[in-house]
């Protein structure tokens, strides 16, 4: 593992790459010049430019660094699973320059102190920006409002109740009203806990055969419907994260058609996993929301294609080995997802689901735009947050090449179609292969 400090303020030129920036409607072979932490020029060299480093990106893609809307860095409080240093390093190796971490840290992200700590630690490590998502309710207990304004001032780009229950509709309604006072985005992970048993999988023939607790799709759609109705009523800006079924895609599409300020993302692994893969009680497939049917998977892919689901996230959840070394129902849910985030989302391009430009929109431009970040694009004069991705380099995912502290992924042994070769964060190299 490379823990060395990245170098600052180099003059860098990335040559011969295919530069893709949907914001500028740019997709062409060009050289990219970086100086003083910003993109100095695309195409022609700035006058008198002497590079400290030349990187040959022939046959590779030069794209904005990914902006990951949901990734857990496990700090503070869960450092047996990972920490900001290891996880932002893994993010950089995965082509990510900005990531949003959910508030279920320990202590919960409901105070300025915790928000500041996280950003400070991320800055010290220097690999990637970590933007905190604050807790919607105090302690995430679902009863009292959190100090949402203070959290926004402390750098939180939104608030969320995650999958924890809220006491009742009245409390939720008031939380949303309060959040919308300050134009805070509310990140929803809609789930009705009463029908989402712990240690479960999608309620279907495989769950019945394996005798595992079943989580029906209505666990998501019931909560999603309620959430959408309250979004409509309160006018809050809402983002629905990690949806899992066809019906949810429909509900989101309807809401968007009504003109509600609603966006959605799906975790990349949700586009590849189905419930029947759990045949051998493999806890690597234990995720929440659960992997559902093939029809759901196809509907999610269609939703990504059509743009109803306009963003892709990793839902990175690293775990220590012991958390997964148990019978399925007693294991913790979650996949260490950084490693497959770019390659498997890029595979959608080779499958004809997305164009390269659309891919970049889903993983970088749209998430950045949602949270009001000046990132996800390669505008001249803006901070150089970018990644060089080689789509021709096939490699096999193995424990040894997972950068995250957590090696819990069902994709071990799978061929990955494409690899990150270089990542710059604000003009400094945060990751370089080799």
């Amino acid at each position, binding site marked *: 593992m490379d823990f060395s400090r990245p170098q600052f303020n180099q003059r860098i030129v990335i040559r011969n790459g295919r530069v893709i920036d949907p914001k500028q409607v740019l997709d062409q072979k060009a050289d990219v010049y970086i100086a003083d932490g910003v993109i100095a020029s695309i195409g022609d060299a700035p006058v008198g430019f002497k590079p400290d480093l030349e990187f040959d990106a022939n046959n590779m893609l030069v794209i904005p660094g990914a902006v990951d809307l949901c990734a857990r860095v496990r700090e503070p409080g869960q450092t047996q699973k990972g920490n900001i240093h290891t996880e932002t390093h893994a993010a950089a190796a995965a082509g990510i320059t900005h990531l949003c971490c959910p508030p279920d840290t320990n202590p919960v992200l409901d105070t300025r102190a915790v928000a500041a700590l996280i950003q400070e630690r991320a800055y010290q490590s220097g690999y990637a920006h970590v933007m905190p998502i604050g807790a919607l309710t105090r302690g995430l207990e679902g009863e009292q409002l959190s100090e949402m304004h203070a959290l926004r001032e402390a750098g939180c780009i939104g608030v969320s109740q995650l999958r924890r229950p809220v006491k009742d509709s009245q409390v939720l309604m008031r939380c949303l009203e309060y959040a919308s006072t300050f134009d805070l985005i509310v990140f929803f992970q809609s789930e009705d806990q009463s029908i989402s048993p712990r*240690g479960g999988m999608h*309620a*279907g*023939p495989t769950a*019945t*055969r*394996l*005798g*595992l607790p*079943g989580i029906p799709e209505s666990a998501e759609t019931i909560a999603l419907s309620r959430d959408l109705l309250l979004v409509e009523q309160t006018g809050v800006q809402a983002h629905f994260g990690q949806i899992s079924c066809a019906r949810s895609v429909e509900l989101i599409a309807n809401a968007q058609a009504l003109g509600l300020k609603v966006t959605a993302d799906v975790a990349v692994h949700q586009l590849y996993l189905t419930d029947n*893969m759990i*045949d*051998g*009680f*493999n806890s*690597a497939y234990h995720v929440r929301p659960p992997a559902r049917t093939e029809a759901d998977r196809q509907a999610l892919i269609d939703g990504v294609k059509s743009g109803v689901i306009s963003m892709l996230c990793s839902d990175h959840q690293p775990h220590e080995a*012991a958390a997964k*070394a*148990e*019978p*399925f*129902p*007693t294991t913790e849910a979650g996949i260490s997802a950084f490693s497959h985030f770019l390659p498997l989302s890029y595979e959608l391009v080779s499958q004809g689901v997305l164009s390269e430009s659309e891919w970049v929109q889903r993983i970088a431009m749209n998430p950045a735009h949602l949270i009001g970040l000046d990132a996800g694009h390669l505008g001249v004069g803006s901070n150089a947050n970018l990644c060089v991705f080689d789509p021709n380099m096939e490699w096999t995912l193995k424990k040894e090449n997972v950068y995250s502290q957590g090696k819990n*992924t*069902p*994709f*071990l*042994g*799978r061929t990955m179609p494409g690899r990150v070769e270089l990542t710059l964060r604000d003009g400094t190299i945060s990751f370089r292969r080799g």
Partner: protein
Amino acid sequence: MTPTIPPHQLQLTPQGQLRHFLTTEGLSTELLTEILDTAESFVSVGKQAVKKVPLLRGKTVVNLFFEASTRTRTTFELAAKRLSADVLNINISTSATSKGESLMDMLWNLEAMDSDMFVVRHEASGAPHFIAEHVTPTVAVINAGDGRHAHPTQAMLDMYTIRRHKGDFRNLKVAIVGDVLHSRVARSQVHALRGLNVGEVRVIGPKTLIPTDFDTLGAKIYYDMVKGLKDVDVVIMLRLQKERMQSALLPSESEFYRLYGLTTEKLAFAKPDAIVMHPGPINRGVEIESAVADCSQSVILQQVNYGIAVRMAVLSMAMSGQTDMQNALEGGDA
């Protein structure tokens, strides 16, 4: 993707012998029949003056019961002892493991004691499979019931009972009545019946207790007990646990009894020589009328008897399969 070997494959040697006994799912008719035939020979041993045979002499069988169960544990203990094995009983409540020692750590400690076989009961579906995947490959793992997934030895003794009293499975209609949703026994029974080419298997109960996709396992679903029992040769009643009334699955015992309890009147819809079975312990007046439990068609008590012989069969077959695999790996020849 990371490959895992599902339980129905993990439990077999490359030659198709049992080396663990995790589930009745996926077992061939030949193997299922071999288990029943082997059990047959042990039934006669049980009638002899000397009930012990030396098949597992020198072997250590560990009863790992994470879920308390006196009945099942004592029959396994008796079966192992009749095979001349040394038996260790380890009762761990799940709270003990949550106090710090992980399942993996416990397994490593047990392995250090040179055990040859684990008999495992656990409330988590897939626990015996997990154990079989992670222990030394020479240790045979016998599933004594895991969550809602499987209870293969119970299903086999039920199959033995049916064969003993009814003969050829191909002509039979078998009905399983009650809380199928939570029943590992029902799942194992359906797999075994299908593997033995039963004529028809039905499950009967209210919608709250029968998963809608249970038909994908090969059983016909009936919500009406009278219709479901029509012309049936074997009626298997499942135990109804008191907790079901508390979790909004059933309104009351009396309503359940009225609709799905096996009374003399309802039994009359089955064939006149139909047999009545129950994995036990029975709840008189809840799922079965007292008179029916004690009537001449009931074979409930015999089931208990056959349980020892069936478990002796499974223990010795699995031990034999493991030893064969070891010999093959070491290049030895039988």
